[in-house]
C-alpha cells in the first residue's frame, strides 16, 4: 500500500533547479534511505515531503489517508538546542503538541503516550534529566521518542547519526531497524553513510542531477549509479 508517491517532480532551491524528473514511491513498512552528494537536494526533498516546501512541478502526495499528523520528524539538531534547558519529559511531550486540539494543556492520554515511547527507546530513566546534559546518542533517542509521539505511521530522519561515535552510530541504526520491523513504522532516512544505508535499508533513492536512481537495495547494488558514485559518498 503506497503512502507517498512522487511522479515527475521538479524541486528548486532559491530558484535553482536541484532535482529534475524525480519518481519514487514509499509503501507501508518500507525502510527507504535517501543518499546523494552535498547539494543534491536531500534536505529540499525532505521538506517537500513534509509539505514545508512547494514542488516546482509534478506530483508529490501522501496516499491512503496518510497525513502530516501521522509523520514523525527527526530534524538535524540546531545550535540553539545545545544549551536549551528542558527536561527529557518536556521534549518528548512536545511531540504531542500538534495532537492536542481541544484542551489547552496535555491530557493524561498524551502523557501516557510520552512515557510509552520513552520506554520503547529505553530512556525512561532519563525522564527528569536535563536534555542538554545528555550524550549525543541519548539526545537522538529523546528526539526519536518525540518523533514517535508526533506520528506513528512514518518517521522522517534527517541524518540521524551525524556527530555520533561509531558504537553509538551502530546502536542508533539497530534501534531504527527495530522501530521499522517491530513497530511497523515506515522509515525515510537521509544519510551520508552509504555502507550502512545499503546494510540496513530495503530501498535506496540516490539523488543525482543527471538522473536519480530509485529501487531496492539489490537493484541499487547492481546499478550504474552505485558503481559510478558508490565509492565517493
Amino acid at each position, binding site marked *: 500500500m503506497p503512502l507517498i508517491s512522487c511522479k515527475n517532480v521538479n524541486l528548486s532551491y532559491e530558484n535553482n533547479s536541484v532535482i529534475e524528473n524525480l519518481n519514487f514511491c514509499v509503501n507501508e513498512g518500507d525502510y527507504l534511505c535517501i543518499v546523494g552528494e552535498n547539494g543534491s537536494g536531500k534536505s529540499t526533498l525532505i521538506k517537500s515531503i*513534509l*509539505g*514545508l516546501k512547494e514542488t516546482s512541478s509534478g506530483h508529490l502526495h501522501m496516499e491512503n489517508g496518510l*497525513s*502530516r*499528523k501521522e*509523520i*514523525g*520528524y*527527526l*530534524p538535524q539538531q*540546531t545550535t*540553539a*538546542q545545545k*544549551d*536549551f*534547558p*528542558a*527536561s527529557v*519529559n*518536556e*521534549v518528548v*511531550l*512536545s*511531540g504531542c*503538541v*500538534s495532537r*492536542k486540539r481541544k484542551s*489547552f*494543556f*496535555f491530557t493524561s492520554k498524551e502523557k501516557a503516550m510520552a512515557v510509552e515511547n520513552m520506554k520503547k527507546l529505553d530512556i525512561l530513566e532519563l525522564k*527528569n*534529566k*536535563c536534555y542538554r*546534559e545528555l550524550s549525543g546518542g541519548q539526545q537522538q533517542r529523546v528526539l526519536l521518542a*518525540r*518523533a514517535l509521539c*508526533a*506520528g506513528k505511521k512514518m518517521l*522522517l530522519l534527517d541524518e540521524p547519526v551525524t556527530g555520533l561515535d561509531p558504537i553509538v552510530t551502530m546502536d542508533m541504526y539497530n534501534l531504527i531497524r527495530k522501530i521499522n520491523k517491530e513497530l511497523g513504522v515506515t522509515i525515510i532516512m537521509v544519510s551520508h553513510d552509504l555502507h550502512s544505508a545499503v546494510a540496513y535499508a530495503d530501498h535506496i533513492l540516490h539523488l543525482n542531477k543527471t538522473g536519480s536512481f530509485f529501487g531496492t537495495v539489490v537493484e541499487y547494488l547492481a546499478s550504474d549509479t552505485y558503481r559510478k558514485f558508490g565509492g565517493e559518498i
Partner: protein
Amino acid sequence: MTEVLNLIFTQNFLTRALVVGILVSLCSSLLGVSLVLKRFSMIGDGLSHVAFGAMAIACAANVAPLYFALPIVIFAAFLLLKMNESGKMKGDAAIALISTGALAVGVMATSLTTGMNIDIYNYMFGSILTMTDSDVIISTVLSAIVISLFIIFYNEIFAVTFDESFAKATGTPTSLYNMLISALTAVTIVVGMRMMGALLISSLIIFPTVTSMKVCKSFRRVIISGALISVFCFVSGLVLSVKYEAPTGASVVCFNIYLFAAVSAFKALKSRNKPRAKVLSVISALLFSLIYIVVMVFGTSGIYNRDSDRISVVTTAFAQYDFARNIVGDKGEVTMLLSPGEESHTYEPTPSDIMKIKECDVFVYGGGESEKWAEVILESVSEEIKTVKMMEAVELFEESHEEEGHEHTANHSEVEYDEHVWTSPYNAVTITEEISKAVIEADRANEAYYKDNTEEYISKLKELDDNFMNTVKNSTYGTIIIGDRFPLRYLTERYGLEYFSAFPGCSAQAEANPVTVSSLIDKVKADSIPVVFKVDLSTGKVAETISAATGAEVLTLYSCHTVSAEDFNNGTGYIELMERNLKGISAALN
C-alpha cells in the same frame, strides 16, 4: 526596611509603581525565556528603540504616546519576524536596521518640534513614580493579557522555541505562534518603557532568563524561577530606590546583575573539581546574601521625614527657592527639589522628593512643560497644602520655536508658554507677593515678620528692575546675541531688548542649526557686537564657535532656573545672579 515597606504600601504613588512593576516583570521574564532561547535577545532592545521613536513622534504630534506606540511596535515586531523568516537578512542586522532607523526618526521628530522635553526623557530612562491612574489601568490590563496568553499557549510556545522545524513539520502553525510571541513582546516593551525606559527595558527580558538558565534543568523551572527572580529584583530595586533615592529602573537592573553574578559565582565554585568546592560555593552564596541583607535592612535610609513644626516650603527650581527663603527667613524651612547644578529639563522626582511635597505647607512650582510631573503628584496630595503656580501669577509669552527668536506664533494645536517667568525682576515682584501670601496663610503666627521680609526683598527687586531699565535706556546697541538656548525671554521683553539666539526657546537640543549659527556670526561681524552670551551650566560650545569666528567676548547669562553648586554653597541668590546679568548685558550693549 519596615519603614520603606510601610511607605510603599501607604503611599499611593509607590503602591501603583509596585503593582505595575510586578506585572511588567512577570511579562518580561516569561517572554524572555522564549526570546533568549530562540536567539532573539536583541529583539527587545530593537523594539524598545522603535517604541522610543514612536513615543517621540507621539509627543511631537500631541497624541497619547501609549496608544500610538503600541500598534507601531507590534508592526515592527512582525516586520522583524518576517525579515528573519524570509532569510533575506540576518536577524541581528535586521534588528540593528530597524532600531537605529526608528531612533533616528524619533530624534528628528523631537528636534523639529519641541526639543528634548521631559516626556521624551522619561521614556528614555523611565519614570515609574509619576504614573497616572490611566497608565496603571492600561498597564495592568495589557500585562494580564500577556500573562494569560502565555499560560494558555505554554506548550505550543515550548514546541516552537525548542525546535521550530519539528513543530512546523508536524503540523503546528509555527508562524502563528511566532507572531504571538512577537506581539506579546511588543506589548511588554511598550508597557515596560513607562517604568524602565527605552534604554533599560530589554535587560528585564534577558537577565532573569539568563540567570535562571544557569541553575534550572527544565523549561518549566526556568520559567518559574525566571519569574520569581524578575519579581524579586524588581521589588528589591524599588525598595532600594526608595531607601537611597536611586533611580528605580537602574536599581532593578543592578539587582539583576547582582543576582546573576551571585549565581555565576556559586555555580563556578561548585563545579570545580577540588576538595571543599561545595563549602566555598556555600560561603559565596552566604556572602552575597549577607551583602544584600546589610544593604537592604541596615543601610541608613535617606527617606525624608518631616521632623519640625515650623513652616515648610518646598520649591522646584532655584528662583522660587530664593524668593521663598527671603520671605521665610529663619522662621521655617525652605527646600529646593532640584539639586544645585542639576539640569531642570531632565529632573526626575525621587520618592523622597514626592514625600517632601506631600508633607509641606507651601509648594511653589513653575508649571511649565518641564514640571508636568508636579501636576501628577499634586493630584494626590491633601487640600491643605498651599500651592503657588508661578505661570498663573504673571502674564505669559508663548514659547518661541522659531530660530533666531523673533515673535512668532507656533502653529501648534496646543500653545506652549515660555515657563521661565521669573527671569524678569518685574515678574519676580509679583511671584514674591504670591509666595508671601501663601506663606502667611499657612503660618499666621509670623505674619508681621513675613510681611517685613517681603517688603524689604521687593524693594531690592524693584531697584534691580530700575537698574535694568536705565542700563538699557542709556546703551549704544539694542541687541544681544546668545550662542546658546535662550531662557531669558521675559527679561528681554520687559526691557525692550532685541535678541538673537542659536536655539529657539529653552529646548535642550544637541545640535545647533548651522544656518542659524552662521547668520549669528554675520550679525556679530556686521554690527561689531562686542559680546556673545552663553547660558550658565551649558557647555557654551556654540558661543565659543561664534567668538572664535568674530573675536567677540563670551560672557555668561544666568537663567536662575538652577544654580551651580559653588554659587549655592556661597549663598548667592537671585539678585546677585541678576546683577551679574546686568553687568554682562551692559558690557554687550556698550
